[in-house]
């Protein structure tokens, strides 16, 4: 169904929150001061691997204005489990699952690991107290490379060894596949640690409310972390509440616990309001990064370009603790073959502990690294065979009825070839190289899951109600990370109820007072909360229509709703406003509100030895095409044009969908050209924005977005998710464009001037 048949859905609808944001209203977790509020501060490990010999807090505690100086001994249950609901434990059986303590006790395993938590009357007193804390460390041998960490002689980061989790994918007979292959291309791809660099660092304020409930207002993607705080403090879950604020960006970095447990501990112990804001440097060293990967890919194909076999080994660096590494790696396993038919597959994947920063969730969740490898292989294959990169891809693209490497059969048409050809065509006529500037063009085709793994039994709830003035309210505890999550829920409600978009508001994102909606992660909120809201709005609509039918003396089937009025189809004069209907509904025994739940379709856990099964309910497919300029004297590279084409199923809000893709692509461009955490034996050398550069207005190219609306998604009105897929193929497309410009493969990110220059010189 096209957007034309909807009144709100698919159109450009300014978001209600945008008007608060452009006015600078205090909507973020850091935007409040409470009477009697203390300032929190964390003392962190300067070492990547050390034994804590002693912690002396006496001088800090004696300082005037200091309310609390807490160590591991003050944490009732010093372990952040961060276990997601669903059958996760079953799927991580056998893993060395090392969870991070709230405050380190006898051992620190990465630079920036929290050791002491302070609360003081002023910023100055907190800072002075932090200086007065004396921690004696004894440095221990560490391991800083995931391959080295697999060596039997490597220092162990945790008891039980450095292997956190292995996953395996087996399909067909890979030996037979390579026997058949007429050509084999093999390359190793490498990616670094990358930071989210949301503009708002990790932030929260906490207090004890009038009923004695420990309440935290935090910048988080996961309101369900109230449970983690309760567990750490050994409080009943009902005694901790998380109030969601608008986030100043998340991108997966506010999916794990950040300030929550430290803040909860300080409030719990002082019984006073506490504010805890990480500095930019703390954010850089303290929160989980994108995993570095080493990916060895060996692809066998026929001379026609038909792929017959893939043998891949993926090694990811989990850093010092497990966090979400097993699941990130699982996404990599599932996406390892790319959006292509590959009959014979063998993928072995392992994630390994090191004394590097923690790695965890980051937009695309393991799909961006494999895309770099599978798309690099497609270009390598095309070059080796002398074929057009578009034709090689077109020959192998998945189609409806094909199985991905896990055996899951695609039930709808992925439209990959259309996304590729439209993106490529929109780049326009090729520019000519001039002087010392070389021009290159590259493609990245991709597939990315939306929604959580099938075996997690994901669920979301939402409430929709009508007010007496005929407007509607949505209550749904879905954090808004800036992607327009809240506005989309309002648009869905407005569409179903026949209200103007501005007459629907969403109030509250709160673990205790709004229906639980689950995490704003995994590109799941439109699918999950969107469907829950859709159901609730439809239920309210049913009662509203019944009331209108009675009032207008017509059949319910003949009632239409639009612009806040109900009318009889074909007789617009027979109409009544919602306010009048709503006022009469209680007397008629009709509810004006509904609480509904959406359960994602579920499937059994995949086979742990072969990876066979149904891992995700659906995927978003799309292609990006990029043009770059490379200066062949300096190696400096700039993207000049980027086109992204996706099947989004159904646009909900056009400017939000475009905004996700434009922003995702430029974030991916940063990964491609600029960004890496510079580590020396686990110590960050660039924990500041001056040295860790992200794209500015002058680095970002024009981005053109082409949205296809197949209606084939599992979300409301046939929508698919786009938040993470927006970013997946950008680094691959840029890498392929640079390789095209310099005439040599280049397989390690970021594509710095030095690296590009070296590739050119090696080829000369």
């Amino acid at each position: 169904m096209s957007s034309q048949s909807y009144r709100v859905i698919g159109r450009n609808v300014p978001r209600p929150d945008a008007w608060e944001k452009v006015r600078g209203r205090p909507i973020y977790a850091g935007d409040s001061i409470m009477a009697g509020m203390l300032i929190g501060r964390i003392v962190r490990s300067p070492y990547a691997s050390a034994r804590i010999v002693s912690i002396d807090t006496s001088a800090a505690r004696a300082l005037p204005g200091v309310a609390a100086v807490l160590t591991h001994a003050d944490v009732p249950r010093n372990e952040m489990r961060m276990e997601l609901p669903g059958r996760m434990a079953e799927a991580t059986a056998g893993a060395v699952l090392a969870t991070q303590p709230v405050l380190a006790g006898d051992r620190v395993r990465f630079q920036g690991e929290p050791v002491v938590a302070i609360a003081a009357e002023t910023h100055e007193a907190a800072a002075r107290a932090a200086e007065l804390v004396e921690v004696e460390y004894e440095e221990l041998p560490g391991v800083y490379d995931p391959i080295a960490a697999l060596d039997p002689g490597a220092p162990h980061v945790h008891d039980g060894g450095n292997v956190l989790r292995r996953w395996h994918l087996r399909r067909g007979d890979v030996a037979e596949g390579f026997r058949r292959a007429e050509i084999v291309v093999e390359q190793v791809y490498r990616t670094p640690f990358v930071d989210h660099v949301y503009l708002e660092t990790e932030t929260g304020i906490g207090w004890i409310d009038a009923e004695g409930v420990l309440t935290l207002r935090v910048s988080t993607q996961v309101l369900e972390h109230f449970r983690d705080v309760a567990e750490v403090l050994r409080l009943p879950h009902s005694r901790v509440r998380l109030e969601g604020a608008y986030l100043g960006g998340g991108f997966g970095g506010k999916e794990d616990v950040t300030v929550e447990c430290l803040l909860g501990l300080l409030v719990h112990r002082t019984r006073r309001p506490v504010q805890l804001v990480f500095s930019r440097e703390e954010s850089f060293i303290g929160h989980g990064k994108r995993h570095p990967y080493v990916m060895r890919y060996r692809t066998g194909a026929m001379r026609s370009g038909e792929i017959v076999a893939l043998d891949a080994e993926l090694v990811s660096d989990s850093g010092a603790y497990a966090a979400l590494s097993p699941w990130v790696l699982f996404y990599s396993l599932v996406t390892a073959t790319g959006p292509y038919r590959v009959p014979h597959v063998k993928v072995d994947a392992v994630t390994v502990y090191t004394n590097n920063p923690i790695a965890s969730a980051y937009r695309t969740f393991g799909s961006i690294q494999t895309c770099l490898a599978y798309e690099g292989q497609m270009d390598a294959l095309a070059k080796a065979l002398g074929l057009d990169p578009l034709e090689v891809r077109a020959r192998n693209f998945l189609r409806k009825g094909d199985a991905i490497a896990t055996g899951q059969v695609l039930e709808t048409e992925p439209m990959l070839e259309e996304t590729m050809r439209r993106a490529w065509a929109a780049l326009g006529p090729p520019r000519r190289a001039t002087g010392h500037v070389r021009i290159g063009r590259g493609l990245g085709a991709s597939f990315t899951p939306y929604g959580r793994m099938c075996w997690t039994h994901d669920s979301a709830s939402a409430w929709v109600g009508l007010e007496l003035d005929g407007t509607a309210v949505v209550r749904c505890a879905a954090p808004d990370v800036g992607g327009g999550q809240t506005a989309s829920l309002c648009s869905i409600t407005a569409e179903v109820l026949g209200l103007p978009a501005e007459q629907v508001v969403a109030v509250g994102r709160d673990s205790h007072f709004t229906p639980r909606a689950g995490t704003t992660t995994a590109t799941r909120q439109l699918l999950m909360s969107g469907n829950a809201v859709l159901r609730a709005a439809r239920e309210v609509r049913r009662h509203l229509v019944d009331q209108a039918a009675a009032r207008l003396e017509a059949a319910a089937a003949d009632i239409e709703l639009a612009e806040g009025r109900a009318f009889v189809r074909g007789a617009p004069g027979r109409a009544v406003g919602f306010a009048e209907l709503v006022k009469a509904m209680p007397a008629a025994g009709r509810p004006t509100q509904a609480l509904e739940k959406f359960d994602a379709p579920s499937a059994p856990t995949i086979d742990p030895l072969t990876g066979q099964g149904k891992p995700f309910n659906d995927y978003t497919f799309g292609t990006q095409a990029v043009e770059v300029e490379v200066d062949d004297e300096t190696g400096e590279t700039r993207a000049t044009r980027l086109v992204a084409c996706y099947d989004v199923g159904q646009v909900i809000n056009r400017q939000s969908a475009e905004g996700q893709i434009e922003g995702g692509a430029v974030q991916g461009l940063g990964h491609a050209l600029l960004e890496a955490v510079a580590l020396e034996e686990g110590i960050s050398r660039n924990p500041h924005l001056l040295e860790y550069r992200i794209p500015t207005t002058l680095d970002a190219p024009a981005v053109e977005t082409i949205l296809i609306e197949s209606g084939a998604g599992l979300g409301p009105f046939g929508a698919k998710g786009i938040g993470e897929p927006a970013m997946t193929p950008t680094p691959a497309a840029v890498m392929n464009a640079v390789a095209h410009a310099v005439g040599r493969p280049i397989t390690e990110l970021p594509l710095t001037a030095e690296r590009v220059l070296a590739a050119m010189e090696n080829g000369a």
Partner: protein
Amino acid sequence: MKLALDFTLNGRPCRIEAEAHWTVLDLLRDGLALFGTKDGCGEGVCGACTVLLDGEPIRACLVLAARAHARDLLTIEGLGGDEMDALQEAFGRLGAAQCGFCTPGMILSARALLAENAAPSAHEVREALAGNLCRCTGYVKIVEAVLDAAGARRPCASAPSS
């Protein structure tokens, strides 16, 4: 040590006792509970704390509050009033604010540009905003919004070759 500061804040006289070590950002957020000016890095790089001092964009996190004495300070709260400023309206309508954390600083940098150059090109907008980082939008709709507010309504172009 405290300093008595007298200055014009968003068009109105303001008098406050400020800590001597306060930056303009501390003055606004801690001293005046004006939270529209954001702290993104505290190091003068991200631009989220951009405000206008005598019409010039400054990084509020780098400038001592004492510098505001006897001068004119404009923050996001001082734009528009009940009505919205053209930049605020364009940012909201065109989807230029996603998470919104960079938005106040972006709008103030853009306002300084438009005060000097009423009809900037897309590239001039990009140059003027190069010190304001955004991680959500890819800058596409931000540049569009500034051009729209300027009435220029030109297609968004990329940065030209250096």
